[in-house]
């Protein structure tokens, strides 16, 4: 969308007061969405996010300005504002960017949205399937969002890159009612793919999964309160890794010495059963990126290996200051904000326990099959999770569904309490979005069935 010759001049302007590095991030993102509510297509939306962000880095400081006016004059103005972070004298800096290839981890050929009727059809099929599943289904809401993002990145070290990122998501919420009690189930799936994804992962299969969870939750008993064992379900349980460990390994917190994992590479931080990867290059996954938002390839990163901390997730600024370089983890929500070190797809590979053995070995505990959300405090690693689908385990058997369970704990402590890792690792349904510093980016999570010897469950049922 920008002429590389103009990008050269803009980058030169950005560095005219000094500065170690500058980049230009140009974005054009088209999104379309439809929502079904109260039995009919209730609303539709489309959005165009277009603009350019210009950043200048000096040591550990950064100046930033963006513009939704793409004229050369407006971008030169933004470059001058970004340059104010540097205090040097005016000097001529010559930058020449060259086309730099990108290895794609998703199909970059789709450049247009499908017909509106095709999206509407997905929502209607989901609704019919959910309603037919169980007479207690009292409401179905469903949303489909399809997004095409093009980014062009120019850097003062001479790269000019383009990435084309598709992202589709279908989410179905089912509400079940019984004797005045209501409970919900939500399932979403999609990824960096197209509407063709739903030919095999049908809207019916997504809706039925949501309806099954809602029907289970409406029968649920109040969650118990207090300390107990926890079995975390495969796939969706990966939110635990994301919150309890992942955020603490983002390099900004570590370079600044804020994270409890700061300066601990090579040390034991978890039970030796624990290995955690973050991977930006899994084909079609929601958190995958062919290149990050600073133009570096989305790599496979070993974060924890057999309980030992191996590395952090680095963006350009922090990776440069820490002397290790970027790991392709610099991501941003849009051209309006600077990139931060972020996760892509975070998961734990297989262990060697059978799921049945893990359940059978649990005397009294909670079986958290999936979480609806979580949050972590970085300096201590204290976290909280809300269980979306949970059951009691009593004497080695899965018994009643439980509702409204909140799990609180401490990330590093929980990771030392991992006593069994299943052989059923898989990535979760693709609908997770991670928030940090007000910026939201799509991510993936995954995990095998894992047993933790004790956590605190916050329910209302004391004793």
């Amino acid at each position: 969308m920008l002429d590389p010759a103009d990008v050269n001049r803009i980058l030169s302007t950005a560095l005219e007061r000094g500065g170690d590095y500058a980049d230009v991030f140009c974005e054009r993102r088209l999104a379309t969405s439809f929502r079904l509510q109260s039995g009919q297509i209730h609303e539709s939306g489309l959005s165009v996010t277009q603009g350019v962000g210009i950043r200048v880095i000096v040591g550990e400081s950064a100046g930033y300005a963006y513009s939704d006016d793409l004229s050369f004059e407006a971008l030169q103005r933004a470059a001058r504002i970004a340059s104010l972070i540097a205090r040097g004298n005016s000097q001529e800096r010559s930058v020449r960017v060259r086309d730099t290839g990108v290895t794609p981890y998703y199909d970059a050929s789709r450049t247009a949205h499908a017909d509106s009727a095709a999206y509407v059809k997905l929502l209607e099929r989901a609704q019919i399937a959910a309603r037919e599943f169980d007479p207690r289904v009292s409401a179905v809401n469903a949303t489909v969002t399809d997004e095409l993002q093009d980014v062009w990145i120019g850097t003062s070290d001479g790269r000019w890159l383009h990435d084309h990122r598709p992202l589709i998501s279908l989410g179905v919420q089912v509400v079940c009612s019984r004797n005045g009690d209501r409970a919900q189930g939500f399932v979403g799936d999609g990824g960096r793919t197209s509407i063709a994804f739903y030919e095999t992962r049908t809207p019916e299969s997504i809706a039925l999964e949501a309806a099954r969870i809602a029907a289970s939750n409406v029968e649920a008993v109040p969650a118990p309160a207090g300390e107990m064992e926890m079995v975390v379900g495969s796939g969706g349980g990966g939110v635990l890794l994301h919150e309890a460990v992942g955020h603490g390994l983002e390099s900004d917190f570590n370079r600044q010495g804020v994270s409890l994992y700061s300066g601990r590479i090579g040390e034991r931080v978890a039970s030796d059963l624990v290995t955690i990867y973050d991977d930006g290059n899994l084909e079609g996954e929601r958190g995958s990126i062919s290149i990050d938002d600073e133009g570096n390839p989305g790599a496979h990163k070993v974060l924890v290996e057999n309980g030992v901390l191996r590395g952090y997730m680095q963006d350009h600024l922090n990776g440069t200051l820490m002397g290790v370089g970027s790991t392709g983890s610099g991501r941003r929500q849009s051209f309006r904000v600077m990139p931060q070190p972020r996760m892509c797809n975070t998961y734990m590979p297989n262990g060697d326990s059978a799921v049945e053995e893990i359940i059978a070995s649990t005397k009294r505990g909670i079986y958290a099959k999936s979480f609806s959300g979580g949050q972590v405090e970085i300096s201590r690693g204290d976290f909280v999770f809300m269980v979306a689908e949970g059951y009691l385990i009593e004497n080695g058997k899965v018994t009643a569904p439980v509702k409204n369970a909140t799990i609180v704990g401490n990330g590093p402590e929980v990771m030392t309490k991992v006593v069994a890792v299943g052989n059923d690792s898989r990535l979760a349904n693709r609908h997770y979005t991670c928030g940090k510093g007000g910026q939201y980016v799509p991510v993936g999570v995954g995990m095998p069935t894992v047993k933790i010897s004790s956590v605190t469950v916050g329910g209302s049922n004391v004793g």
Partner: protein
Amino acid sequence: MSVEITPDNAVDYAQAAVDAALASGASQAEATLSIADRFSAEARDKAVTKLEQSTGRSLHVRVFVDGRKAALATSDFDRGHLKDAIAAAVAQARHVASDPYTVLPEMNGAPRNADGLSLFASDVANRDAQSKIDEALQIERRMREIDPRITNSNGSHVGDSVSTIALVNSNGFAGSYRSTRVHRSGSPVALDGEAKRTGSYGSASRSLGEMESANAVAEKAVRRTVELFGARKPATMRVPVIFERDVAASVLSDLFAALSASNVSVGNSWLAGRTGEKIGSDIVTIDDDGTLPGLLGTSPFDGEGVPTQRTAVFERGILKTFLYDTYYALKLGARSTGNSTGGGVGPNNFYLHAGDRSLDELIAGTQRGVLVLDTIGFATEHASGTYSRGARGFYIENGEIAYPIEEFTIAGSFPEMLGGIDAVADDLRFDGGVVSPSFRVREMTISGD
């Protein structure tokens, strides 16, 4: 080609978007143009670590085609592109079900202007960048002076924005207003032996004159960070719980969701069908008021041009009304309360009326209980009204703060919480759209060891 868009021609530009929608076949249309000059400085220790300054523009267009609606949000101001995008929105609307309530609000009289609302403060608009940078450095310096355990920080921020909103619709509404917002925050990191803690405090206002000083922000940020050193995990118990005002405000945010007609209409609210009922205790009086001068939740009109108003939501514990935009008001047989966000229902200044005792007096009047300073996590179950959060705070014994506690959850239900409020403090402060004084709930479940 793109045009120069300024606060002065914003209404004209929004009008042009409405005209384009009608020309594309829309039966009604509405356009909202926002222009914001934003500045933000971040400092860590003695260095300025981030400087950001930009003018951002966005245009939101809602097109209505005989009760079918689509919304467009764009930052592409090229005339040709905009025309195409609006036409695409109109085409997309044809796939939406027709709904008799999907209309623009009827307009009676001239649009309300912002005179007397004190939304724009020239002390913010005219401030030079260097004084903001100096202030961010000052918060960093002050935090370290207050307590030697503050050895690091997540960054202190000082920033502001100067915004113009212009709204035009095809029912003849055309209005605009300008506003300012300034904020200061500090996020210290404290080290005591091996123990590390982070905390933060931020404050915001429409004007510099109304702002908490940089030193006050630094002091509160430090207190929040160091006061929990040595925290223990409490026992599992049922005791009175005092919600300190910022946490109290987050409880009110959850309550707002259950009062929003968009949730009530689909049954996703524990309050559905309960207007006129006594839900809260006698000291629970809650208003939504978009007319209070100088506050962050104040505006002359809401997201679809309806004048804002004062709405009594709970009066002495009795639920008086839900909060509506035009669509849900028509659907549920009510009048809009001026709570449209231009696509949903949102708060203006939504607050619990203050009591006359200080927070210290509330603590002194609590034999055994918990003071909650901070919660993490978020509830999703507005339908059932259940409440569950991870929390940190203090254990109270014999009317005094005994020791800090953490790694526990508080759980209960909204009916139980509102009905159980037995004391409200006098510390209400309007530093956001949803605010509350501290209050005490008679009994809740604490889950710890």
